[in-house]
């Protein structure tokens, strides 16, 4: 009886290991959509978390409002000064946009920079923090799809890797998943110089861009943007600033070390970038 029990237990463990391997294999395949079961489980967890967080958020926002009210008068004056300039700036932007569109139509080209943004809020971060990832409160119903770029107000932060019904899972630029096929352009004196993101150097906290042509003249302080040449990323999303340039190990090309503009440790509000279909045609 005891032997039979042990054999049964061994079978259960073996069966469990097989299921684990199958699940790992399933989750690591390159998929463009998630199953209904995944969506339901993730949305149920997100929904209950939002309900539990609601009273804490309310108390937090109450204290925040009280704290901010101490500087309200000074802030109000600054904003009023900016507001007086706003109608003129608005008019200028509309005029330039119209002019830009007319010229584009005349030349019969579309811009790789064209995109729409969807605002989202970070609702959860992985507590074990092995991979830099977080969950946002927008999903398939809001028009999100896998592979979209995610920005903070400072710069690019990551990629949407899994889309559920009302939530999405985002992996940050510091993980290998987000760096996959990420083509960038470094602006040096107004000229774009192209390269690919190789990896994130965790010891120095810098992004490594490789395959930059020799004698390109890159220098520290040059800004790095997405190139719009690969994937769902439009052109011109700010990534960071070059802090160091060196030759690669064979001396055939250069590598640039880039300091990210966005702060991976403090992400609260993000913008999901939806590239316009016309911009993908070129």
């Amino acid at each position: 009886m005891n032997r039979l029990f042990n054999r049964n237990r061994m079978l259960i463990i073996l069966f469990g290991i097989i299921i684990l391997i199958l699940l790992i294999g399933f989750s690591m395949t390159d998929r463009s959509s998630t199953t209904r079961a995944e969506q339901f489980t993730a949305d149920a967890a997100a929904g209950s978390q939002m309900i539990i967080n609601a009273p804490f958020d309310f108390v937090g926002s109450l204290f925040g409002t009280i704290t901010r009210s101490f500087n309200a008068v000074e802030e109000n004056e600054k904003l009023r000064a900016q507001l007086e300039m706003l109608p003129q700036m608005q008019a200028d932007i509309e005029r330039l946009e119209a002019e830009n569109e007319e010229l584009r139509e005349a030349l019969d080209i579309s811009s790789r920079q064209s995109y729409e943004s969807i605002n989202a809020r970070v609702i959860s971060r992985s507590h074990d923090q092995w991979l830099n990832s977080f969950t946002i409160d927008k999903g398939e119903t809001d028009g999100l799809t896998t592979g979209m770029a995610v920005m903070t107000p400072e710069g690019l932060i990551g990629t949407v890797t899994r889309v559920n019904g009302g939530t999405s899972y985002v992996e940050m630029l510091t993980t290998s998943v987000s760096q996959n096929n990420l083509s960038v352009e470094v602006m040096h004196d107004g000229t774009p110089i192209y390269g690919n993101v190789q990896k994130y150097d965790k010891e120095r906290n810098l992004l490594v861009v490789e395959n930059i042509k020799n004698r390109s003249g890159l220098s520290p302080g040059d800004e790095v943007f997405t190139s719009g040449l690969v994937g769902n990323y439009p052109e011109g999303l700010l990534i960071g600033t070059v802090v160091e340039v060196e030759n690669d190990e064979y001396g055939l090309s250069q590598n640039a070390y880039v300091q990210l503009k966005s702060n991976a440790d403090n992400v609260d509000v993000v913008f999901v970038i939806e590239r316009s279909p016309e911009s993908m045609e070129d």
Partner: protein
Amino acid sequence: MRAIMIFLTSFLLMYVDFAFAGFSPIIVSDVEVYFVPRVLLMFILLLSIYTGSRMSILLAVVFGAMLDFYIGSVYGIHAFGMVAFVLFMHTAFRVFHKDFVAMAFVVLLLTMLYDIYIYLLHIILDLVDKPVFDYMALRAAPSLLLNALLFTVVYVIALKTSRVRKEVLPKH
């Protein structure tokens, strides 16, 4: 009623775990020190002793799957790990149920081993490349300290939700 209470408490403890993600890592002289709480795991491990293995295995499967689908990149890691550790706890350490110190030692040891199991799986899958010494010094040890601080609270919650009779309670 007790099952509902346990389920709701598990939900709350899962979000207590999530809440710590906002404070960790802490930068100490340019080095990132990670504090990873395992409140939910400690609760489920204690329930396997005081409530029974069936209830804790069910919780391990439900919450493990939820963690995998909600915040995980690789499915199955938490679900399988939690069930395996609950079974291990139930089989090997049931005898300590009256001794608080022994129970604390066992639960904290298993919590640490659980984190090592997840670390090893991530290393095998080539998702992280943290050296072992860095992991032990900057993650495993601080997390153990944090979990030791949280253990007493979780222990009281586990006893209350399990409605353990007084004669079974530890003497300490």
